[in-house]
């Protein structure tokens, strides 16, 4: 399974978590791709933290608007019925309980629902951007990430070793191998990708992974 296939599986599965009427913020990377797989017949409003709701698809080449980018700096469009706002109001939306779902990538996530995705001390310090606000503010925090680093090193840990972006805020982890609930009892394997053995998935997960009594295959 190559990187592109993994990303597609993850984005597609995350999209199924969205419900009609949800206001959703999609982070950079895999999360952005979720927009391509939103099930037909449900109405999702995408929020772009640089200041609007109603984020649409990429513009046709040559149709880019210099005043209209997403939070990753890419040219985008706004759907009919969308609305622009200033950055303060944009984060009123995020922090004030008005955002149903945020989907974020990560460097590490752990069994307490902690997430670390903004810096590797001494190496890589991009900053948190709006991620910390999104993690605290969204009603549901979905981590969309490859299961491991380069197919080897677990990203889903007993305890994050990198500086945290948020503490105990993650609700769901979706990878190319598994759909994992973060619960009071720890991590629960809710669905697995039948291309992988359950034992292998556990091996590639540093955190303790309890198997749900209602375990199903990822669709």
């Amino acid at each position, binding site marked *: 399974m190559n990187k592109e296939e993994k990303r597609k599986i993850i984005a597609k599965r995350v999209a199924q978590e969205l419900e009609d009427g949800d206001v959703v913020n999609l982070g950079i990377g895999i999360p952005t791709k979720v927009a391509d797989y939103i099930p037909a017949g449900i109405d999702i*409003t995408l929020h772009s933290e640089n200041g609007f*709701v109603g984020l649409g698809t990429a513009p046709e080449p040559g149709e880019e608007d210099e005043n209209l980018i997403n939070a990753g700096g890419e040219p985008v469009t706004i759907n*009919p019925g969308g*609305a622009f706002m200033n950055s303060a109001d944009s984060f009123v939306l995020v922090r004030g309980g008005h955002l149903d779902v945020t989907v974020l990538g990560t460097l590490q996530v752990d069994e307490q629902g902690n997430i670390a995705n903004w810096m590797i001390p001494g190496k890589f310090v991009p900053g948190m951007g709006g991620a910390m606000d999104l993690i605290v503010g969204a009603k549901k925090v979905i981590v969309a990430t490859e299961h491991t680093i380069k197919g080897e090193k677990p990203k889903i840990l007993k305890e994050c070793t990198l500086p945290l972006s948020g503490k105990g805020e993650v609700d769901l982890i979706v990878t190319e191998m598994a759909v994992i609930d973060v619960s009071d009892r720890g991590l629960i394997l809710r669905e697995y990708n039948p291309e992988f053995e359950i034992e292998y998935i556990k091996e590639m997960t540093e955190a303790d992974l309890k198997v749900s009594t209602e375990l199903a295959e990822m669709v």
Partner: protein
Amino acid sequence: MSKVVSLTEIMAEIESGQTVMIGGFLAVGTPESFITGMLEKEVTNLKIIANETSYPDQGIGRLVAARQVDKVTVSHIGTNPETGKQFNSGKLEVELVPQGTLVERIRAAGAGLGGILTSVGIGTRVAEGKEVLEIEGEKYLLELPLEAEIALLKAWKADKKGNLVYRKAARNFNPIMATAASRVLVEVDELVEVGDIDPDQVHTPGNFVDKVYVRGESNE
């Protein structure tokens, strides 16, 4: 997916005992059809958060005059003698809050803030019972968020997604209250199609709005 409903559907959400924010400033920007509906439904024991209690025959004042209100959290009651009378006889609880602090407390709830620090009210009765923080030699009151179960708002135009545009001084508390209540119900003068409002000129994005009633529509 249209948010447009009848007045009956709006009224079905309003119950006695609720905490209700009502937009408007001396009845300008107040949803009068909703007030009339509440008078007819005879909901009682309301806790109202608003700028003031208007006049006895207008806006929020009508609910006070009809004795449907247990408590008001407002900046002013001087224009409604009925409020003062009920307050003096102990029938109505009145929490007076400086106007700027009032709207900022509502905004804090809508913005997910735990509170704000302001020097307004320092050295006055407003400070009584409140935590005072000193920052760089300056004293500030810690003022806490104000939220509600229902916000009853008035806008000029809406589209079917609930995007709102307010008119002139009727804007006032409405856009802020739209962020601070669990349910946001709006009376509008005019309904337009989705896409008719320039996204640069939306005052309240539709995702903050639950239901829209078009004033004067038959009550189906």
